[in-house]
């Protein structure tokens, strides 16, 4: 029984941790391109998960199509976020953008509340409802999908940032956006791409989370904060770090739930965040560069 509990805790942690990791990746992409923290990230997860579940549950859209539409809608929202902040708002400094994202997050949440009429929506597991049994423990099959997805996203992002022209440009923008502009690359362009990618990542996380729980308009805020904690833990802007940070945070929460007083599981993220900010602001795998803004 004891090993059963241990495996269960591990599975639970990885299941939720994979989602935190994808959210953390979204924070990293925008941080790398603009130096800002995007607090709409959690709301992208909510919009992705909620719209997929609403399409599926209320309008009987086939599940794969519902998820694709949800990702498209969320990506559009990312595009609009950038247009609002940098286009309409003409914001350029990371601090200004960061603070303005909080306002956008509130607006998105409010709009989602009205559109969903405060109702909750659920999505079935993509791999079927049966549980997966491993060494006396069990988890939703969706967990496997989420883990695979989080690793794939990390690999894809790493390749994108290291090997493609756009990716290199985005990284360069983080390093020195003024110099980059003298080379004819507009700050807007890099920022727009970053927001679009981050929003799409959020939607993927939301679609992965919805089958594990139930989505409502207020599902995003806490997830955003936990994803942020995971990103800080792994080192902001470092894709592998985000994955490690997300999984670690998920497992830490599960350990507290399984062995300790589960009432405090949600506090874990914030204790981790506080500890990281105090003792190692660059994160476990971060370099000094990661926080030079």
């Amino acid at each position, binding site marked *: 029984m004891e090993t059963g*509990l241990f495996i269960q805790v591990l599975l639970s942690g990885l299941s939720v941790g994979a989602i935190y990791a994808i959210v953390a990746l979204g924070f990293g992409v925008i941080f790398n391109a603009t130096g800002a923290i995007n607090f709409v990230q959690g709301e992208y997860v909510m919009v992705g998960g909620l719209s997929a579940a609403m399409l599926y549950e209320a309008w009987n859209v086939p599940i794969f199509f519902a998820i694709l539409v949800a990702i498209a809608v969320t990506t559009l929202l990312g595009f609009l976020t950038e247009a609002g902040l940098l286009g309409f708002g003409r914001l350029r400094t990371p601090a200004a953008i960061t603070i303005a994202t*909080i306002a956008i997050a509130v607006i998105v949440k409010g709009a989602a509340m009205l559109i969903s009429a405060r109702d909750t929506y659920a999505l079935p597991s993509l791999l079927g409802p049966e549980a997966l049994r491993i060494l006396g423990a069990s988890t939703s099959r969706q967990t496997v999908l989420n883990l695979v997805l989080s690793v794939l996203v990390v690999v894809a992002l790493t390749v994108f940032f290291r090997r493609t022209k756009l990716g290199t440009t985005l990284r360069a923008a983080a390093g020195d956006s003024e110099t980059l502009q003298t080379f004819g690359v507009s700050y807007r362009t890099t920022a727009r791409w970053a927001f679009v990618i981050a929003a799409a990542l959020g939607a993927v996380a939301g679609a992965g989370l919805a089958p594990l729980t139930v989505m409502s308009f207020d599902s995003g805020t806490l997830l955003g904060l936990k994803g942020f904690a995971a990103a800080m833990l792994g080192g902001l802007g470092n894709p592998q770090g985000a994955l490690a940070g997300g999984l670690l945070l998920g497992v830490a929460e599960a350990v507290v739930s399984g062995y300790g007083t589960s*009432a405090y599981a949600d506090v874990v993220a914030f204790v981790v965040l506080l500890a990281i900010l105090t003792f190692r602001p660059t994160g476990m795998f971060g370099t000094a560069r990661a926080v030079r803004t």
Partner: protein
Amino acid sequence: MRKKILALLAGSALLASSACGLGSSGAGDGDDSITIGTLFTVSGAGAKLGDKMRKGAELAVEKVNSEGGINGKQIKWVFYDPAGDTSTAVQQTNRMLDSDGVELVVGGGGSSGIALAMDPITSGKGIAFIATEGARQIVEPAGEHRLTFKTTFNDTTMVEKLIEYWKANDVTKVAFMPDTSSFGQSAQEELERLAPEAGIEVFTAAFDPAANDLTPQVKRLASNDPQAYLAWTTQPSGVTFLNNVRSVLANKDVMVMHGFGFVDDRYMQQAGKAAEGTILVSPKLPVWDKIDDSDQQKATMEEFATSYAEKYGGEQPNVYAGQAYDAMMVAAEALRATGGDTDGEKVAQAIEGLGSHVGVTGVFKYTSDDHSGLTSDDVAVIKWDGSRFVPAE
């Protein structure tokens, strides 16, 4: 970086405090109206339940006013939305009483934590308060809550019914999962107090209402081999509980249960197959059409369910709407008894003197010692059969 985080926190605090609720302004209790103030959370966490409560209360106000009001006086209804935040609720309560001219308060924000915070304010100003929230501490001990009543079941009553049901079904070991809200914690206190006396062993693991996975807790409790798993929450994570229990316990034949905070069709539908056979303790409302005609609540429940569906485009009421409707109706009946006098002491005496008030939630019999008014006779044990709630045998 750290400075930036601080700036962010300050920014978000500002935003949060500026996002206060809607409400009407201007004091005004002319002689031709009685001002009743209500707080329900219709945005933010818990908005789903608060919305039902608001609709239930609204229906009651309209009914009373359209039937000639209270001794000729119309109810003037002041409504605020604390968005699930206790400190906002405290400010709004003060504003209602100090500047909106509210003479009686019905509804405590839709969460026990908020209702508990409102009680000292209303009592301090000599205003009667009829809460629609669950925690027993809102009105107990009655001697210290002279002016505060509620239209919900005490956890004690629900727990008594549960123990009765477990005994009848030879259940001796129970896994209990309350959430960490005051609703869950208050039930935990009662269950851990009453169950051992009845020879029932309880193993408890609490969970955060925002949790996305409860399998570690379920697995831990499973090592004690309980015959029943009971969750106590009003939040969507109760759906996760159903999924996780069925998944961790494979096809094991155990009793899966929820408290009266989770009696909601949508939640059950969202848990899909995992919800089938779930047993809940609940007011009779969800099964009103399935109970015996001799039940004295039947006519009241039918009228409520019909007029609610009519007013809100076919939407079915749930127990939360019923509690809010009852609270407003108890207030109206008590005010009729005082002749429209809203003095807190007089209203309290009138409520205690109502005898029995047949409501949607139950038959309320308030006394000076009991400000909840309901007994375990008003509780039904119901079951989700995959498409609707039915009485459990």
